[in-house]
C-alpha cells in the first residue's frame, strides 16, 4: 500500500489509536475536547458529536433577574391620553384651537393645515392602590393590579408611520432588515427548552402588524433566531404536523432510517455538520410532541380559563395570553403578542375613541391582567418581564379627517405610555411626565433604545456588549444609543 492509499484509507479510529499510543490518555482527552476544532469527540464512540446548538443556553453578562420576556405589542398605537394620561387642562380646552407653538413646523401623518382643535378625553380616570396610578375606566381590570406594574409616561420615538415605527420599536431601526428584540435575546442567551422555539410570536386583532414579519425577523442574524409564529388555525407551528397518512410510528421508522443513513455517511466523510443534522432531526421529532402538548389547554382549570376569558378555536388575545404563560413556564425565552387594531383616527364612528377604543380595551384588559396574576400565582412573575405598549402615541388634537366629526387622534411620536411588570422591575413606579396637554415629554424622557437597554439589563445583558459583526461593524439592538432606566431597576 502506498502512502497515498494509506492516507485515503485512514479512518478516524486508526488515527486516534495511533495518537493515543503516542500521547497518553489525558493529553488525548484534552485535545479531543477542544472546541476550537469545531466539534467534540466522544472518546467511547470515536465519532464527532454535534456542536452545542445555536439555541443552547448561554451565560448572560451578569446575573440577571429575569429569564424571559412577554411583550404585549399593541399594534396600531393605543391612545395614552384616554388610558394613562389624565389631562384636566386638555379636557378644559376641549374643542379649542391648539396653540400654534405646539404644532408649528410639525409633520403629521394625517392632520393637514388649518387650525386643528384640542381633544379632551371622554373617559373617566380612577386612582388605584399604593402606587396611586391613574388608570382609565376603560381598563378596570388593570386597576386591580396597579401596584404590580410600573408605568412609563415619557416614551418617545422617531417614527410616525405604523410600519417604520413598529420596526423601530422591535428592531431599533425603522427600515426592515435588522434583528428583532426576541432574536437578539435568543442569540444572546439561547433558550431553556430546546424542544420549543426560543422566540415565539402570537398574533391576534384585525390583522397582522404593519411591519410584517420583519417585526420579529432575525435580520442579519442567522435565521434560527427569527420569531416562530404559533398559528391559531391549522398546525400551530408550520410543518410540525405529520402529513395525513403518516402516523407517529411511521414517522419514527422513517426518522430511524434517516438517522442510520446519515450516520453511515458521517463515518465516511467525517463532517460534523451531519452529526448536527442528526441531532436536529431528533429535536424536530420531540417538537412534534412538545408543541401539541403546549397547545393542549384542556388540563388548565376552569378557573384559569375563566380568568383569561379564553375563546377556544379563535384567534384571540386571551388565548394568546394563556399560551404565553404556558410558553414561559416551559422555558421559552421570548414571547411576543401582537394585537392589531388601536389606530383610532376617528375617521368613522366605529374607529373613534368613544366606540372603537373601548372595544379594543375590552379585548385585552381582562386577559392581560389575568396573565400577570397567573404568573404571580405561579411564582413566575419575578423572572418574567411583561411589557405592554404600542409603536407611538396619539395626538391631543382631534384629527377630523375630511371634516368628519368623530373624536379621533392622529399618530404622535413625541410622547406615549407603556407599562412594564415583573422580571425584577420595580413595581408601582410612575416614571416620566408630559406637559399639560400630553404633547411633549417634560421629565425623564425614555427612548426606544432606553427601554430596550432596560429590558436587556434585567435579563443580565449589558446592551452595549450584545453585538453581531455584520458588513464591517458591530451592530446592536440599541444602535449607538440607550441607557437602562435606573429608577425602574431594583
Amino acid at each position, binding site marked *: 500500500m502506498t502512502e497515498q492509499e494509506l492516507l485515503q484509507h485512514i479512518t478516524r479510529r486508526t488515527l486516534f489509536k*495511533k495518537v493515543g499510543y503516542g500521547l497518553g490518555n489525558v493529553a488525548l482527552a484534552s485535545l479531543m475536547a477542544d472546541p476550537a476544532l469545531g466539534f467534540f469527540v466522544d472518546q467511547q464512540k470515536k465519532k464527532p458529536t454535534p456542536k452545542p446548538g445555536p439555541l443552547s443556553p448561554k451565560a448572560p453578562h451578569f446575573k440577571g433577574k429575569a429569564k424571559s420576556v412577554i411583550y404585549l405589542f399593541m399594534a396600531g398605537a393605543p391612545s395614552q391620553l384616554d388610558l394613562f394620561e389624565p389631562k384636566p387642562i386638555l379636557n378644559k380646552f376641549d374643542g379649542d384651537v391648539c396653540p400654534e407653538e405646539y404644532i408649528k413646523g410639525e409633520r403629521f401623518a394625517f392632520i*393637514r393645515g388649518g387650525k386643528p382643535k384640542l381633544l379632551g378625553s371622554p373617559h373617566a380616570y380612577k386612582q388605584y392602590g399604593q402606587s396611586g396610578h391613574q388608570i382609565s375606566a376603560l381598563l378596570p381590570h388593570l386597576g386591580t393590579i396597579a401596584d404590580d406594574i410600573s408605568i412609563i409616561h415619557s416614551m418617545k420615538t422617531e417614527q410616525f408611520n405604523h410600519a417604520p415605527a413598529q420596526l423601530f420599536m422591535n428592531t431599533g431601526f425603522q427600515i426592515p432588515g435588522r434583528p428583532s428584540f426576541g432574536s437578539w435575546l435568543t442569540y444572546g442567551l439561547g433558550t431553556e427548552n430546546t424542544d420549543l422555539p426560543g422566540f415565539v410570536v402570537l398574533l391576534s386583532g384585525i390583522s397582522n402588524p404593519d411591519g410584517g414579519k420583519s417585526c420579529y425577523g432575525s435580520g442579519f442574524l442567522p*435565521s434560527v433566531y427569527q420569531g416562530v409564529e404559533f398559528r391559531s388555525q391549522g398546525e400551530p407551528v408550520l410543518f410540525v404536523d405529520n402529513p395525513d397518512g403518516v402516523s407517529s410510528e411511521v414517522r419514527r421508522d*422513517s426518522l430511524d*432510517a434517516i438517522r442510520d443513513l446519515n450516520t453511515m455517511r*458521517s463515518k465516511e466523510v467525517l463532517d460534523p455538520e451531519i452529526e448536527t443534522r442528526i441531532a436536529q432531526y431528533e429535536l424536530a421529532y420531540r417538537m412534534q410532541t412538545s408543541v401539541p402538548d403546549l397547545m393542549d389547554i384542556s388540563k388548565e382549570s376552569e378557573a384559569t380559563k375563566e380568568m383569561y376569558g379564553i375563546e377556544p378555536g379563535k384567534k384571540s388575545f386571551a388565548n394568546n395570553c394563556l399560551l404565553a404563560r404556558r410558553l414561559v413556564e416551559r422555558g421559552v425565552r421570548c414571547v411576543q403578542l401582537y394585537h392589531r387594531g388601536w389606530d383610532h383616527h376617528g375617521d*368613522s364612528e366605529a374607529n373613534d375613541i368613544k366606540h372603537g377604543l373601548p372595544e379594543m380595551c375590552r379585548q385585552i384588559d381582562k386577559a392581560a391582567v389575568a396573565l400577570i396574576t397567573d404568573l404571580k400565582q405561579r411564582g413566575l412573575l419575578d423572572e418574567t418581564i411583561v411589557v405592554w405598549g404600542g409603536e407611538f402615541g396619539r395626538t391631543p388634537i382631534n384629527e377630523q379627517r375630511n371634516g368628519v366629526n368623530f373624536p379621533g387622534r392622529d399618530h404622535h411620536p413625541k410622547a406615549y405610555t407603556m407599562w412594564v411588570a415583573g422580571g425584577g422591575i420595580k413595581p408601582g413606579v410612575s416614571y416620566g411626565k408630559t406637559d399639560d396637554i400630553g404633547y411633549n415629554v417634560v421629565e425623564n424622557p425614555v427612548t426606544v433604545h432606553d427601554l430596550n437597554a432596560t429590558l436587556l439589563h434585567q435579563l443580565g445583558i449589558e446592551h452595549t456588549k450584545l453585538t453581531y459583526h455584520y458588513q464591517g*461593524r458591530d451592530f446592536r439592538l440599541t444602535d449607538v444609543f440607550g441607557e437602562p432606566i435606573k429608577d425602574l431597576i431594583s
Partner: protein
Amino acid sequence: MRFSSLWFGVGLLGLGLAVPAYQQTKPAPPLNWVSYSKDVVPIFKAACNSCHAGKNAAAGLDLTDVAALMKSGLIKAGDPEKSVFVRRIKGLDGLPQMPKGFKPLEPEKLALIENWIKYGAKIDQNGGKHWAYIAPVKAAIPKSPVVWGRNEIDAFVLEKMLGHKLKPSPEASKEVLARRLYLDLTGLPPTVAELDAYLNDPAPNAYEKLVDQLLASPHYGERQTRMWLDLARYADTNGYEADITRTAYLYRDWVINAFNKNMPYDQFSIEQMAGDMLPNPTPDQLVATGFHRNSMFNQEGGVDPAESFYNTVIDRVTTTSSTWLGSTLQCARCHDHKFDPFSQKDFFKLFAVFSNVSYRKEGDYKTTFSEHWIEPVLKVSTPDAMNAIAEAKAKLASMEERKKAFAAENARDFAKWKIEAGLTVQFVEPKVESVKSAGGATFTVGTTNLIEASGTNPDTDEYQVALDLPEGDINGIRIEVPTDPGKPGGRSSSQNFVLTNVGLTVDGVKVAFNAAQADFVQDGYDIKKLVSGDRSSGWAIYPQNTMNHRLVLQTAKPVSGKKAMVTLGFHSVWAGHNIGRFRVSVTTSDYPLLDIVRDNAQKLATQPVFNEDFDNQLHNLYLSTSVKGLEFGVDLEAAKREVAMRETGLPTALVMADKPTTGKLTAPVHHRGEFLSPGELVDAGTPDVLPKSETGNNMNRLELAKWLVNGKNPLTARVEVNRIWEQYFGRGIVETMDDFGTQGSAPVNQKLLDYLAVRFVEKKWDIKAIHRMIVTSATYRQSSNASATALNIDPTNLYLARGPRFRMEAEMIRDTALQASSLLNPEIGGPSVMPFQPKGIWDSPYSGEQWMEAKDKGRYRRGIYVFAKRTAMYPSFMSFDGTTRETCTVRRIRTNSPLQALALLNDNAYLEAAKALGAKMMQRGSLEQGLVYGFRATTSRKPSHDELAVLAKAYAQFRQKYFAHPDEAKKLGKDERDAAWTMVGNVLLNLDETITKG
C-alpha cells in the same frame, strides 16, 4: 504552551504517516523582517483600534493613520526603549498600561513592535494602506517540489496547503464530480439518465465535455441569477406595510439571459446601473436598470414622500457599494467611517449620483394623506404580443359594427325598453317575515323595511331573509345598503363589506340569476361571480365606504310565488365584513337593471332628438340592461376584455430615468445621516481613497458605472471573483464577502484572489471563463471526504486540501427535490409563480392580495421563480436561510435547525415530491432496483450494501404498517405499496447527502 506542544506532536505524527517529504519547517524570519502592514497592523487591529481609530480616537491617536502616527513623536525609529509608544505598552513611567482595561499584549507581539521600531519603523512600500485599496497584481506562479494540479489555481492553493502541512486529497469519483458539477453550474442535480450518460462516456476529456455542456445549458443562467437576485434585492412586492405586488420579473429574466449570453461583467454592470443613459438604449438595456428599481417602496398613508425617497437613494448607494466595491460605505452615512478610509462626504458624493432620478407625483402630501413619487414603468412589447393585440382589436371592431344592426333586429324589444328607460323602475318592498344569521347576529326590521344587524359580528356569516312576495312575475331583486351618519353599511371596522353570494328561492324552488349590476364596485371585485355562484369574489365598496349603494340582480326567467327566501353570504377572507344595514326589494319590470343607471337612462330615453353620441350611449345602455342585449353584450364585452387583456397584458418593467441636467449633480451631507438635517453641499463623485474617474465628465450614474468597471478600481474584480469562488467552495477567499475593509477578514490566499481578479479583467470580464477555470482545477475536483489529519489541522477547510462540502441553499433544495422526483417544470423566465404554501402566510393589512396557488405545472417551477413577497417570504425558503430581499444581501449564513427538518419532512411541497419519487421507484420492478434508482436520483451515487439494507428494512416497516392500516395508506397514496414507497421517497429527500453539495 502545553497545548501548542501537543498540537505539534500530532502534526508531526500525521506528517510522519502521510507525507514525509514536507517535513521541513519554514525558517523563522530574521528579526529585521518585521513588516508594518503584515505584522504590526494586525496587532493594532486586534488590540488597539477599538479605541485608537478614526476621528474620535482616544487621546487623538488614530492608529489607522500611519502618517499621523509617525508624526506623533510616540515612536523613535531605531530606539524602542525611548519610544513612548513601547513604554506605554509596557506600563512604564507610572502611567496606565496599554491597551488600557484589557489584557496586556502578549510578549511575542510586543517583541514584534519593538523589533519593528528597532529596525527603523519602516513602512512597507504600500505605506500601510489596506490591501484591498491597492490594485491587485499577478504574483509569479509558485513552484513546488510536489507535482499536482491542472491550472494556476492549483499552484496557489498547493502553496497554502503545504504551508499548513496539508496535502491534496485524491480526485473525487466520477459520480461525485458529476453531481458537483451539475449542482454548481445549473443548480440541479443530474437525473439518473444524465448521470449514466456521463459515467458511460469513455472519452478522456469526458469531464471537460460535461463542463462545456453545462456552461451552455440555459439552467446555467438560472443558477447564477439566484445569487445575483440577493444582491439586487429582487422581489415581487414593494415591501413595508401594504407590500403590494409589483411587476418586476422582466428584470429577473434579463439577468438570466445576460448570464446565459455570457455578457461581460463590465457591460453587465453598466447596463444595470445606467442602461437608460447609454446612447439610444434598447428596451433590454432599460429593463436592466430594474436593478436599482428593486428598492423597497413605502405606500403607507401619511408617509413623507421626500423622506421615503431619501431612504430609496440611500438603499441604492449602499447596494452599489456592497455589490461592486464589497465595502461598507453605509457606515459613512452618519459619520466618517470608523475603520475604513471612507468619509461621510464620500457617502453623499455617491448619494448625489443617485439623487437626480425622475419621477411623477401621485397625490399631494400637503393637502391629502398620501403622496408617492412614482418612478418610471416601461411597457415592454414583443412582436407576438403586438400581433395578438391587432387581432383582438379587429374582432372588436367587427362586433361594434354589428351592434347597431343588433338593435334593429330587436326593434320591438328596443322600443319597449326605450319606454321603460324613460320611467322609474318600480321596486316594491315585500313584507319581511324573518331574518336569520348563521353566525349569531341579531336583526331589527324597521318601518321602512330597513333591516339592521347588531350583536355579534362573526368572521363569516350568511343571512336568510324570508319575504312575502307580491303578485306578478318577479324579474329582479335589489339589495340597498343605505348609510346614515354614524350608521355605516358595512359592519367591519373600515365599514366595508364583502358580499360573496346571493341566493333566491321562491316557494322552495331555487331561482337562477343571469345578470348583476351595482352602482359602485370596489376595484378588483367582480359582481358577475354573484351570478355564477363562485364565492371567490363579489361585491365590496372601498373606498366609497360611507356612501349609499345598491345592487340589482336579474332573474334568468320571470318567477312568481308566495314566499321567497333571499340568502346573503359573506365568506371572504376579510373577517367580519358583513352588511349591517340593508333593504331587499323586488320588481316586475322587464328591465330591472335599468334601476342602476336610471338617471342617465331617463335623460337619454327622453331626449327628443338623437344625435349619434346619444344614440351610441343609448345602445350601450340597452345592451347592458336588457335580457336580449345582455346576450349580445356578453360577447361584446368579452371582445373588449380580450383587447384590454392583451394591452394591459403587455408586461411592464420598473426602469430608471434621470431628470435632464446640465450642471453638476450635488447633494447635501446630512448631519448624522438624518433626513431632517441637511447640511453642506457636495458634488457627485467617488470615494477619495479609490482612483479617480478618468473620463473628466461630470459624475452621474453612467460615469459611476463606467468607473466601477474600468479595471483600475482595486475592488470590483476582486469582489466579483470572490463571490464566484464562494459559490463553489462555500466560503470566499475573503470570507467576509460583504466587507473587504479593515474590519473584514483578510484573504486566506491573497495571491490567488489577485491572480483571478487580474485575469478576469485581462480576459475582458469573461464570466464563464472564470467558472471554467475553477471547475477544471484540481482543487475543485478533490474528494470532499476529510481525512482525520486534515480535519484536525484545518477543520473548516480554509486551505482547501479537500473538496467543498456544505448544505445547499434554499432554492437548490427545492430544485433538487423537484428534479429527483421528475416533477420539475424546466420552463425559463416569465411571471413569478405560486407553488403550494400553507394557508394564512399572507395576511397584510390594507391589501386583499392573496396567494393563488398554482394548480398546474406552474407549481413545479424552480425556486428562483417563486413569488417573493417581502413581508411574507416563502416559508420553507426562510427555514433554509433564504433572504427577505429587503436590502442587498451579499452573504447568506448557513444554519442547521429543527425547523428545517420539519419543513423537509412535512411540507406538502416536499411530500408531493416524495409521492412522485415513490411512484418512480415503484415502477422499477424490483425492490432493489427501485431503491437504487431513488438513491441515485437524490444523491447521484449508488448505495452501499448497508445503505440498501437500511432502506429495504424501512420499506418493509412502512409496508407492514400500511397493510395493517389500509385507511392510513389511502390518505397518503393510491394503496398500501404506494404509501410505503412515498415514505421511502420522504426518507431519501431528507438525507443529509441529498441536501448537501459534497
